[in-house]
């Protein structure tokens, strides 16, 4: 059998269902529900921010989310197929003309905002304003 197919079959049971991961686009504001394990207790933390990078294929797929906490930029990279990834949902769509929004790191204040995208909100759950 083909090597690539063998590797795909190995990771197949680790991949999340396609319907569990929404159609993510660069510039989206997303809510990442991530499981935090403290001792034997488990709780879910929500990290909301702008999706600035989306890398990898298959089980390696990752997203980088940036938010501003106490005027300080915080970026976290989440593996989409990790068992600790409880849920990811799109809150708002914005126009982005780059595949990587690293330029947001150099911006301050109002310039940080991305232009809202008015179209295409229908099929994103929880954004039906």
């Amino acid at each position: 059998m083909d090597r690539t197919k063998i590797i795909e079959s190995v990771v197949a049971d680790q991949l999340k269902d396609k319907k569990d991961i929404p159609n993510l686009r660069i510039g989206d504001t997303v809510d990442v529900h991530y499981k935090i394990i403290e001792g034997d207790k488990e709780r879910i933390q929500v990290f909301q921010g702008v999706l600035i990078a989306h890398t990898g294929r298959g089980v390696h797929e990752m997203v980088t989310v940036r938010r501003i906490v106490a005027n300080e930029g915080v970026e976290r990279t989440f593996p989409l197929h990790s068992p600790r990834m409880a849920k990811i949902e799109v809150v708002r769509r914005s126009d982005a003309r780059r595949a990587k929004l690293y330029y947001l790191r150099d911006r301050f204040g109002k310039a940080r905002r991305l232009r809202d995208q008015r179209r295409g909100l229908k099929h994103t759950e929880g954004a039906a304003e």
Partner: protein
Amino acid sequence: MARTGILGKKIGMTRFFKPDGTNIPVTVIQAGPCVVTQVKTTAADGYAAVQIAFDDMKARNSTQAQIGHDAKAGAGPKRAHREIRLASDAEAEAYTLGQELTVDAIADLKFVDVVGTSKGKGFAGVMKRHRFKGMCATHGTERKHRTPGSIGSHGTDRGHGAKIKKGKRMAGRMGDEQVTVRSLDVVKVDASNNLLLVKGAVPGANDGLLLIKSPGRLYKRKVRIQAGA
């Protein structure tokens, strides 16, 4: 514990998530099925060992001698044959000619040694081949940034002379040699597909032949983990 092993083929690397979300880099190995083609005993061969063979090949690409050797075990011609030394004849008795070994043979191991052939690097300089530091980038260095420097002199009883010391590390062919990686964690054994997942990298390119065997020696921590099996 009796020593055991299996031959396999490197498939490639991927990642493996544990239920708690820990991400483990793994190498996927197509391990077996292998055939026992010879059992060596102290009486007949002077030492105890088992020879295993892996990977079918066409008879016309093999040789008469190899075909005959494999036929004794009731198997078709195989591409790779390797021997695993056993501690005593008693251990050799566990194997019979023609016996099939699958990845189950190493299923109760928590750690394995993996032997492979490293990727060839061609003619490499001393910085790459022997991790020399090289010369200064600046301070007046000209055209000697990656040179080994003085290779000394040797050859007289006073410690210096016209000859270079034997075994002096210099530039030359690098890679394409046997490399053993010791005590890699076994992440998963998939007996139905003959697949083995070990933590970390193993030597060689994809599709390369690997010998996976029980660990030669383990750190105390790993001995405890293995004993808990």
